[in-house]
């Protein structure tokens, strides 16, 4: 493909010969230091107890039917969750990409809110709907349906934002041309739109897959005894049985499975690369016309409102539904810690959450965009391998990473109990998001667009600034919003990082939920509502950022 050559060559003059290697070296160093090194350390400690390789652990996991069952369940529920999420969210991705409607940016921020809520809280809302005494007439708890529904609930925004992000930049006139030439709606979608969206669909699918592959809280709360993922087994082996070698063997199995799947993904992605005409999003969207389009818009927003909004509304309702009717009692008493360190002061929790969130977001965006440039402009097995490696933290067990930090970071400086590790761990999970959201856009930027701009006399720096940068900025901001959400929701390894007293909003919620008493439950719901509002607000703010004269997107 001549285009590939064009992209490779384009990268070269982008940065001086001295700085170019840094584009690769900085993300690689980040990954090596914060992921590979701790991972290697914990696996070495667990699998070579006393210096000899522990074959028994591997033999052990292969022999246990329960563990084999967990491996199989992990795979099929992740595949099914991914497909369902794609199916549920693709129409909404279209709506957000193509239609202008009042409250659009608010709606876009709102659908990201589920992403940050702790599973204990979401679990309680789902049980209130689907559980034995729930609002729905059927008891779906302890069934695969509850697990799948929760996975779609959590990951809906990933698909809407990732696929919608690219879709918004695709020139709708291509589809219009196909329609004019006589293709039906379905055929146009199948043969014109879908191939153009492929990199974004693959990226979103990969993220959702990895997330659900390592699902933990949802499975424990909604799955009952019958279902366990490899992640749940790793947790049980570690925390309940203190069986580190078996846990490590399971972690290796999990990593191997994730790597294999990422390899398949990389091959698929390779085939799917095509460069295309991207345009600023606002040129591609318009107000819906006619009852059909309005109906489609309403149906999708309605689905999101019921499916995502329903559980959220339950939490909000509980936060104001006091013994004396609807009141703000719980919110008012949030600050009353009663002189005990049992509960976290909400102000401090909020401040820590935002501090960690912004730091993690900055790290993730800088590292993620650099890495995305490398994987989308670079070529050959190096870039492909690097791309795969970048995704791995998302598919690695939180226990493994957390304990890895513990055994790795005691020398030369003891960082094991430093709060610095918290935003770093968050950014480790967030970087793959930024890469997956920005890389499809970068890959899709059509070389001829630049060429013709250059031909018209624009210097390359200006070409980059006026064509690539606005498109990349937009997707990087979406990535930033997710990075912030990941940190606000305390994703990943942080549950297994030893920390000094630095409560965050999710931790404050856990502490409230850990004690009996109706006041504590109400306050936990109030704190969850605060987390939701902070998330939506922070995402709105991030997406309003403008870089240079990138214009309205």
């Amino acid at each position, binding site marked *: 493909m001549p*285009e590939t050559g*064009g992209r490779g*060559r*384009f990268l070269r*003059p982008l*940065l001086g010969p001295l700085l170019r290697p*840094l*584009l690769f070296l900085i993300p690689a160093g980040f990954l090596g230091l914060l992921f590979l090194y701790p991972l290697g350390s914990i696996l070495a400690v667990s699998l070579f107890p006393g210096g000899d390789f522990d074959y028994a652990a591997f033999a052990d996991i292969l022999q246990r039917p329960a563990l084999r069952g967990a491996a199989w369940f992990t795979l099929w529920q992740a595949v099914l969750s991914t497909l369902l999420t794609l199916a549920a969210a693709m129409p909404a991705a279209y709506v957000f990409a193509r239609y202008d409607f009042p409250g659009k940016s608010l709606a876009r921020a709102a659908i990201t809110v589920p992403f940050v809520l702790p599973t204990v809280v979401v*679990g*309680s809302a789902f*049980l*209130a709907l689907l559980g034995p005494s729930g609002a729905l007439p059927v008891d779906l708890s*302890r069934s695969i349906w509850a697990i799948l529904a929760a996975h779609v609930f959590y990951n809906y925004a990933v698909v809407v934002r990732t696929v919608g992000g690219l879709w918004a930049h695709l*020139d709708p*006139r291509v589809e*219009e*041309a196909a329609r*004019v030439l006589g293709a039906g709606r379905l055929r146009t979608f199948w043969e014109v739109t879908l191939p153009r969206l492929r990199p974004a669909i693959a990226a979103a699918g990969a993220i959702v897959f990895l997330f659900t592959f390592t699902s933990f809280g949802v499975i*424990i*709360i909604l799955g*009952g005894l*019958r279902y366990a993922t490899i992640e749940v087994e790793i947790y*049980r082996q*570690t*925390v*309940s049985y*203190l069986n580190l070698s078996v846990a490590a063997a399971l972690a290796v199995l999990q990593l191997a499975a994730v790597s294999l799947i990422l390899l398949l993904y990389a091959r698929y992605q390779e085939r799917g690369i095509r460069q295309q*005409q991207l345009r600023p999003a606002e040129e591609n969207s318009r107000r819906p016309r006619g009852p059909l389009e309005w109906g489609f818009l309403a149906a999708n927003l309605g689905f999101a409102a019921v499916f995502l909004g329903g559980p959220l509304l339950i939490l909000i309702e509980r936060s104001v539904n006091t013994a004396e009717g609807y009141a703000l009692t719980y919110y008012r008493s949030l600050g009353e810690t009663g*002189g005990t*360190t*049992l509960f976290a002061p909400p102000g401090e929790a909020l401040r820590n959450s935002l*501090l960690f969130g912004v*730091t993690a977001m*900055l790290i993730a965006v*800088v590292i993620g965009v650099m890495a995305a440039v490398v994987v989308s402009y670079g070529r050959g097995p190096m870039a492909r391998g690097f791309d795969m490696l970048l995704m791995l933290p998302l598919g690695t067990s939180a226990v493994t990473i957390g*304990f890895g930090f513990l055994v790795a970071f*005691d020398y030369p400086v*003891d960082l*094991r*109990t430093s*709060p610095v590790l918290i935003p770093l761990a968050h950014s480790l999970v967030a970087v793959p998001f930024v890469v997956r959201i920005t890389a499809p856009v970068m890959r899709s930027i059509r070389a*001829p667009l630049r*060429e013709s701009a*250059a*031909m018209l006399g624009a*210097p*390359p*720096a*200006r070409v980059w600034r006026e064509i690539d940068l606005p498109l990349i900025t937009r997707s990087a901001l979406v990535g930033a919003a997710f990075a912030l959400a990941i940190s606000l929701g305390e994703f990943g390894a942080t*549950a297994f990082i*030893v920390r*000094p*007293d*630095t409560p965050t909003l999710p931790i404050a919620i856990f*502490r409230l939920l*850990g*004690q009996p*008493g109706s006041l504590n*439950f*109400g306050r936990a719901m109030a704190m969850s509502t605060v987390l939701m509002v902070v998330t939506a607000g922070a995402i709105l703010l991030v997406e309003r950022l403008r870089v240079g004269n990138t214009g309205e997107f």
Partner: protein
Amino acid sequence: MTILEESDRTRSPGTTRHRGRGRERRRGHGKRIGRAGLLLIFVLLLLPLSLLSACGDGEEDAGDQAAVTAPAENGTEETEPTTQAADGDVGDENPENLVLMTHDSFALSEGTLTSFEEQTGIHVQVLQAGDAGAMLNQAILTKDNPLADVIFGVDNTFLSRALEADLFVPYESELLDAVPEDLRLDEKNRVTPIDFGYVSLNYDKSALGGPGQPPVPENLAELTAPEYRGMLVVENPATSSPGLAFLLATIAEFGEEGDYTWQDYWAELAANDLLVAGGWEEAYYSHFSAAGEGDRPLVVSYASSPAAEVIFAEQELEEAPTGVITDGSFRQIEFAGILSGTEKEQAARELIDFMLSLEFQEDIPLNMFVFPANENAELPPEFVQFAELPSEPLTLDIVDIEANREKWIEEWTGIVLD
């Protein structure tokens, strides 16, 4: 037609024709972007700084010390005062910084550790390391270069593993005389009992024992009766500490041998429409009828839960909405130990003494909702009135628990699996 032409036009400019020229031009202006790259890297270099300052803030506020150096790293007592001074401490001329590793449920009144510091000049920094199981794992993993000087919160279900791992330096506090013999599980005093609690069945007073309602069950065996069908929710012992304690209680009660074993009991419970929740939060708040929207009037919780229900009630309550079935309660004892490898053994001993002192012991109930180990400690009125002390709690030998934990849980899963 115009649409088609336009889209054709945008697609058609040759991809190869202008390439050479474009590249030429780019080369000429490469430096400008180079500067942008430089800026990017500059921002990146600034990040660690912002991070450090950010975390400095956090620590200051939490009343903590600056970054903790591991005790094993020759953190001699002489080097400590600088960090202390920064915190504006009063007291001893030679104050020390002692690190206490504990689980996430650790809590005290706000002034308690400050009071210790005023008395001894020893500042205690608290590290929270997840739940009790995760904490013990972390202590074992970092045994050669420990994170802390003292660990608190290892309970009797994990004690044997902790002792096996050889984590502790023995210390016999003089205050141990005030601790009942049956709480002192390690004769070598490698660990010191600090508090104990009971995992007990709680019931909803509005659903049981009233007119026309089934009576409150008096013991574990009654729960298999048809009148309690669909009434009980327990936690999964594989993922929940009270769940494991309740399983151990049934093993202690019904035994492993004989006509009717614990396995038989659980088979009957399961057949009586038992509900298993993943964790305590879910069992209590989503399924227990006295606490939320749940529909099950019997739940595995703690003997202190009714007291917490009163203390954390929205409106003042005369009586707890829940009650405890004291029969079949499992006793969890929590221990503290001095981690071997500490350079501050003397200070660590002082902390252990303090933890057994009346000041600390009497602070335990209303913060951690468990009972003080020191017999002389007075219970707060809420505990006297609403928490119930089981007269004959169940326990199992710690070595048996360690040897069989995994086997029991796997067997239990096989029996109860729906």
